[in-house]
């Protein structure tokens, strides 16, 4: 191996990134984890309900039942081999977390406790009260500190460095790409460029292998999403700009129960423990434990009919609520001024999880790019298909996170490459772009206002129920915004700690990812899982039992449908 050359660059410091880091390190590689915020600030901290594994500690269960439930929820769009591998690895993943010290709740027999989540045929979700993601994430973080894993906070991903010319935000940056555009399959990733948020400097980090674990794109539905401010699909946009492939981007899961005013998540465990959904008349209108897409549509339908929808937990009693769902009780009081022990909780369904993402193969290698892996919500490993089961995302980030780390190391040691010798102009290009934003761009239009409006329009027109005319109008609106970016820019011209600049870069990523979401939604003239069109209410297997795949070639967004085999 070359000396001083980083083996594995991990971009994103949530559960998937930290799991990859630990397994890469364990396999003997040098590892650097880079993230735009602090590791414990990631989306993983927000996962409440639990992590699936067919331990059968509470009710009888089997790996096969876990596989069957996952495949059923995926509506034919999954890779059954990947699902099988994930479900088989689930008990081992729980065991690994147990060894690291994750404080999972216990049964009376001192085994890991498990609860019911929607779409599951058994009590399968292992939990730590309703802080499951938080406690897993912090335990992973503690373990990373113990293992001396190097982490770099507040580094915002700008672009991948490849041997295929320059990818970038602006048309001027993309210009250089046309000159030596290679066939997409031969693009090699050499590392990535970052904005060091604190200093304002643009820097490059070279590595033999890069793992992208940057999270989903729920932030597209701004103010109508349970996701954090940073769920802006950065890694997904970056892969697209570098010539890699995305898939199934039209599949966005809407969580049935977020607080009406603040879009704050109320965990599915609230229904799992026996909570009811009722309308203004006090009537229940749906089996609360059906899969999320079905429940979300039922609620949306009530709201369309002029009803308000509430979560009713009153019958569970104060003691049970405070023991099992302390966080929910707190959030209701804070954001809605509601005490769920005595009052109904006003709710609405909001964007929650991105099933689509960076297209990867069974080894989690990014399609179209060499030496590059993707894992977690930013990726589409085809384990969730058209609709993710509650409890399977924490499982994915741990199980596949570890797999990505292991696989990436495996090929590092086999390879002798010249990653750090290949010169590219990516760094210069990105430096010029950032300097331009700070110096030249006017600020004639406020992008925050535009982004808020776009978020609401995505919720209305590319949300739970879709229609081609509305999708088309929204796609036009988005393209007008893209063409108008030169008139936006940033008002804050300071170089250091410029969060206005970061917000603007994230907005550009949202626009690129959003365009693919809309186009893919338009193409899919059927209803499947989370994607529902009133005019096409059925699954059309003949045409659409297929993954929708997107990439950029010769500066144009290309797409194809790839049939699902088996």
């Amino acid at each position, binding site marked *: 191996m070359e000396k001083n050359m980083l083996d594995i660059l991990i971009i994103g410091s949530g559960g998937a990134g930290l799991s990859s880091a630990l397994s890469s390190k364990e396999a003997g590689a040098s590892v650097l984890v880079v993230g735009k*915020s*602090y590791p*414990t*600030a*990631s*989306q993983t*901290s*927000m996962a409440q309900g639990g992590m699936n594994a067919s331990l059968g500690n509470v009710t009888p269960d089997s790996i096969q039942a876990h596989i069957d439930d996952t495949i059923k929820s995926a509506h034919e769009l999954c890779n059954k081999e990947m699902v099988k591998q994930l479900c088989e690895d689930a008990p081992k993943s729980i065991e690994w977390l*147990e*060894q*690291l*010290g994750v*404080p*999972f*709740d*216990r*049964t*009376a027999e*001192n085994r890991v*406790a498990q609860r019911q989540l929607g779409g599951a045929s058994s009590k399968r979700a292992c939990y*730590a*009260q309703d*802080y499951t993601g*938080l*406690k897993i994430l*912090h335990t992973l973080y*503690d*373990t990373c*500190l*113990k293992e001396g894993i190097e982490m770099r*906070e507040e580094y915002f991903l700008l672009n991948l460095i490849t041997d295929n010319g320059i990818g970038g935000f602006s048309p001027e940056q993309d210009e250089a790409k046309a000159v030596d555009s290679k066939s997409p399959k031969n693009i090699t990733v050499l590392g990535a460029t970052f904005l060091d948020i*604190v200093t304002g400097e643009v820097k490059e980090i070279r590595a033999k292998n890069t793992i992208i674990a940057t999270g989903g794109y729920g932030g597209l539905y701004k103010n109508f999403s349970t996701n*954090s*401010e*940073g769920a802006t699909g950065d890694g997904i946009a970056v892969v697209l700009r570098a010539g890699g492939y995305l898939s199934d981007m039209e599949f966005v899961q809407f969580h049935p129960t977020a607080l009406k005013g*603040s879009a*704050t*998540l109320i965990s599915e465990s609230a229904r799992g423990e026996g909570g009811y959904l009722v309308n203004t008349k006090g009537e229940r209108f749906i089996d609360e434990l059906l899969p999320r897409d079905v429940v979300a549509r039922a609620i949306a339908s009530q709201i369309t009919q002029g009803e308000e929808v509430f979560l009713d937990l009153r019958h569970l009693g104060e003691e049970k609520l405070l023991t099992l769902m302390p*966080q929910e009780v*707190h*959030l209701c009081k*804070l*954001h809605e001024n509601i005490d769920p022990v005595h009052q109904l909780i006003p709710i609405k369904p909001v964007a929650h999880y991105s099933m689509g993402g960076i297209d990867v193969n069974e080894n989690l290698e990014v399609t179209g790019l060499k030496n590059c892996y993707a894992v977690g919500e930013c990726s589409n490993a085809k384990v969730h298909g058209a609709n993710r089961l509650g409890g399977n995302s924490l499982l994915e980030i741990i199980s596949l996170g570890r797999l990505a780390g292991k696989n990436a190391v495996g090929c590092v040691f086999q390879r002798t490459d010249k990653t750090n010798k290949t010169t590219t102009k990516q760094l210069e290009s990105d430096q010029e772009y950032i300097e331009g934003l700070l110096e030249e761009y006017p*600020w004639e239009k*406020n992008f*925050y*206002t535009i982004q*808020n409006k776009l978020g609401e329009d995505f919720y209305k027109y590319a949300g739970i129920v879709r229609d081609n005319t509305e999708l088309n109008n929204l796609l036009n609106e988005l393209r007008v915004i893209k063409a108008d970016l030169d008139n936006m820019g*940033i*008002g*804050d011209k*300071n170089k*250091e*700690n*410029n*969060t*206005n600049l970061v917000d603007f870069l994230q907005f550009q990523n949202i626009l690129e990812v959003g365009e693919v979401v809309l186009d893919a939604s338009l193409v899919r003239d059927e209803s499947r899982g989370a994607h529902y069109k009133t005019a096409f209410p059925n699954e059309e297997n003949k045409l659409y039992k297929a993954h929708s795949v997107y990439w950029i070639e010769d500066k144009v967004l290309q797409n194809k449908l790839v049939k699902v085999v088996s």
Partner: protein
Amino acid sequence: MQIKINRQNNIESFELPFQSSTLLKALYHIKNNEDNSLTFSSSCRSGVCGTCAVRVNGKEVLACSYTIQEGDLVEPLAYHEVQRDLKVNKQKVRETLKQATAWLQQSQEATITQEHIHLTEKQSDCILCDSCYSSCPVLEVNPNFIGPFALTRAYRYTADPRERDIQAIIDNIQSNGIWDCTLCGNCTEVCPQGIDPKMDITMLRGTASQFGYRDPNFQAMDFGFGGGF
């Protein structure tokens, strides 16, 4: 409604069009509509990521979980390097976790009961918002003090039946650690998660004494009488 923000020791007032709002929503309103350069940190908006802690009228709160009042003065966390406006450097403060070696030292097989889980349920709710650190008066006189959150985390692992080597943690929190705390309870008062670091530090002192450590302050006050009274 009006709030004031301390920006690089310059107090600026902002008029807000809300009757009631979380502080975070108010900060975003200002940044999005009035002054793009207002700088603060936030992420999850629901009190679990620990990013948005600030001080309001001298007391630590999470901006996303605090309802603003007329005339509030908003300031960055104390004992952190202020990078800009309300944004602080948490990297240096996180070094205390390494100093305390607040992790599972040596994992062993153990029977874990729900009672064990309850014992450190609160401690493992920590979101690393640094509120407790900012409220701690010991840091005024000893900037090297490990501080409340890292000690709570150390306790969380010492109380875990899976920990085989409790002494390793205890050894690492002697210097600038458990004995430097004055047990004033500020940390307990400001913790948004209801954690009680003061109690955790007291528990750690108890464990330390089992390993033969004694309060060095007490020894210093002992004036040669042998302490045997």
